[in-house]
């Protein structure tokens, strides 16, 4: 080793390196402290609750806590024949506690979800227990089996065993129109009850086509806005910005007026002779309404990012392309269009993500055939109060959005999102 290099010291005798590091750390802490309030606020009020949605969606602890002894004694049961006396005895003692706490109804409800027909069996057992008909000194298995013939059916005991784990994937399977059957295999529900898959597909379809429509309509006007002289483009920009700033419900209301059967659009069709006056087409409460209204409502989100990208493209590039012998179409396709891809990406991502979670407009103009997965989530949140199911569907939707977001980040980069 060569001779030691002399350390540079600051005026107070501390080595410069350490002193700089200290200052750096201080600056880091300072910057972090500025962000901390908002970060903390969001983590508590927003990020944690999203995590809670997850635990809620897989939570099945209620029944695990209701029948602790039963599940303990079932651990050794092979599940092929009727369980042993021990299982019956522990089930009875669990059940007695539930009856005391008046929670046997909940148990019946939960078990009935697992296998139809549990409500009446549990009720019958409840009556026997209430009247103290079951003698614990005798063979409990025999006595319980006498209460209802279904207690003799091994399938019902298998159903109880299936509810043992504190976590369940049932809500996620239900959202895909599937369930776990008796043999622990994932099967599809019968064809006439497959409603959720239709909704998922429809949501994707609507989001996809709305994005396409927005792109097809937004690209030309963004181009026009970016190439027109400032004084005209500022005026036309109002046409984009006014809807952007106007309440969503106002815009939805105006579409409801326009698209109704006696509405302006139908009037216009009658006047130009496209349809007969007594045969006005239904344009609202179906997919047409959803498409038209959503496209208009989301169009500004396509135009604004496109515009901000196109604005930075120098017009001399197109001129250069033409002067080098390209026709205007070739110059556009080979020079201009590739330069606008970041804007296209940002606009499409924004519109697609907004469309996939849309709720208000489809609920108002969509009718039955225009409702999307968000409507279903809201319905379970507010009407059936099946919050764990709503959480499961919400998280699946969120997963989809995050995948799209990640893809976009890989392909284009997130930094291109601009607001106006």
């Amino acid at each position, binding site marked *: 080793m060569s001779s030691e290099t002399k350390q540079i010291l600051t005026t107070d005798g501390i080595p410069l390196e350490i002193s700089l590091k200290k200052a750096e750390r201080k600056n880091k802490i300072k910057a972090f402290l500025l962000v901390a309030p908002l970060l903390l606020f969001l983590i508590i009020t927003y990020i944690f609750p999203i995590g809670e949605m997850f635990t809620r969606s897989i939570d099945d602890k209620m029944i695990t806590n209701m029948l602790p002894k039963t599940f303990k004694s079932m651990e050794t049961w092979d599940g092929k024949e009727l369980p042993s006396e021990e299982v019956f005895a522990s089930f009875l003692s669990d059940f007695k506690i539930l009856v005391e706490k008046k929670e046997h109804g909940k148990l019946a409800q939960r078990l009935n979800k697992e296998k139809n027909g549990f409500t009446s069996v549990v009720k019958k057992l409840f009556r026997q227990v209430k009247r103290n008909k079951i003698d614990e000194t005798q063979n409990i298995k025999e006595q319980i089996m006498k209460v209802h013939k279904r207690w003799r059916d091994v399938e019902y005991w298998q159903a109880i065993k299936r509810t043992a784990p504190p976590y369940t994937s049932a809500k996620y399977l239900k959202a895909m129109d599937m369930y776990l059957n008796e043999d622990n295999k994932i099967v599809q529900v019968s064809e006439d009850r497959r409603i959720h898959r239709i909704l998922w597909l429809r949501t994707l379809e609507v989001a996809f086509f709305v994005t396409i429509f927005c792109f097809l309509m937004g690209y030309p006007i963004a181009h026009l806005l970016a190439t027109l002289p400032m004084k005209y483009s500022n005026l036309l920009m109002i046409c984009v910005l006014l809807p952007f700033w106007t309440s969503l419900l106002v815009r939805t209301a105006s579409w409801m007026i326009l698209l109704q059967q006696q509405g302006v659009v139908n009037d216009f069709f009658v006047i130009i002779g496209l349809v007969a006056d007594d045969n006005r087409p239904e344009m609202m409460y179906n997919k047409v309404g959803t498409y038209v209204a959503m496209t208009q409502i989301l169009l500004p989100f396509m135009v604004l990012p496109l515009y901000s990208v196109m604005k930075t493209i120098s017009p001399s590039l197109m001129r250069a392309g033409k002067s080098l012998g390209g026709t205007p179409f070739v110059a556009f396709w080979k020079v201009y269009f590739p330069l606008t891809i970041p804007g296209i990406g940002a606009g499409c991502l924004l519109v697609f993500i907004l469309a996939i979670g849309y709720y208000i407009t489809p609920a108002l103009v969509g009718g039955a055939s225009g409702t999307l997965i968000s409507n279903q989530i809201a319905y379970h*949140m507010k009407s059936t109060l099946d919050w764990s199911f709503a959480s499961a569907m919400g998280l699946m939707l969120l997963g989809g959005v995050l995948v799209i977001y990640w893809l976009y980040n890989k392909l284009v980069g997130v930094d291109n999102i601009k607001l106006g």
Partner: protein
Amino acid sequence: MALPKYTETRYRIWHYFYIAICTFVFFFLIAPLFVIFPLSFNAEEFLVFSEGMKNLDPDAFSLRWYKDMVYGTKNPWGLAAKNSFIIAIFATLGSVILGTVAALGLSSRHMPFKGIIMATLISPMIVPLIISGVAIFFFMAKAGLAATHTGIVLAHIILGTPFVVITVTATLSGFDHSVTRAAASLGSNPVNTFMKVTLPLILPGVISGGLFAFVTSFDEVVVVLFLAGLENTTIPVQMWTGLREQLSPTILAVATCLIVLSTLILISAELLRRRSERLRGINR
């Protein structure tokens, strides 16, 4: 856009086709808003243009629905408007303060874990509203804040801050940090420097972020539908209920007022944007 004389016919045709498409799209964007104006002055109860209106008969027009909006018996609009403004103002204040402070930290070059923190801060903008609604509802229900103004204000702060963070960080990206160092070297403390030097310079960004936050709160309906009780009804919630039950012309009167409001917001946002660009030295 005049075409040069030597343009070939097919490009000429293409050009007019392009202009026609653009005209149609602009019309498609803006026309729906203008249907509401005349219909809100309708003298009749139906939401269609009556014969009298088509003939511009003065008797076919009236201020009936505006009167109903203001004076109508058991009309919810007064309470809804009051709630909407209170909630939006407090939510805007909260978003602006939290968001601006966070943006200051984020644009410091010393900030650790910048990427992931930025992603967290703007996540409420990316996550579909319905999911935000469910999550926020779970939190508010647990905290006992469901069906309170406080709960809705907090929810709207969550939804509004990303806009403030984005606009203020954008403004700060063109910010010359030597001015704050100059202030510090002249003996000003950090708070004073912020109030006297930084804030006036980034104010346009802060205000336009605030406008976004205000509109987000004022127009927000999904989360409020989960959270609100009868007492916390807001204008969008009332419109939502009204539109679901029956389209009454009173809603159109309210909608007209909202369009006027959004025009005012648009004008202020535009003025701010231009001022901000001037201050940042971006002249196009």
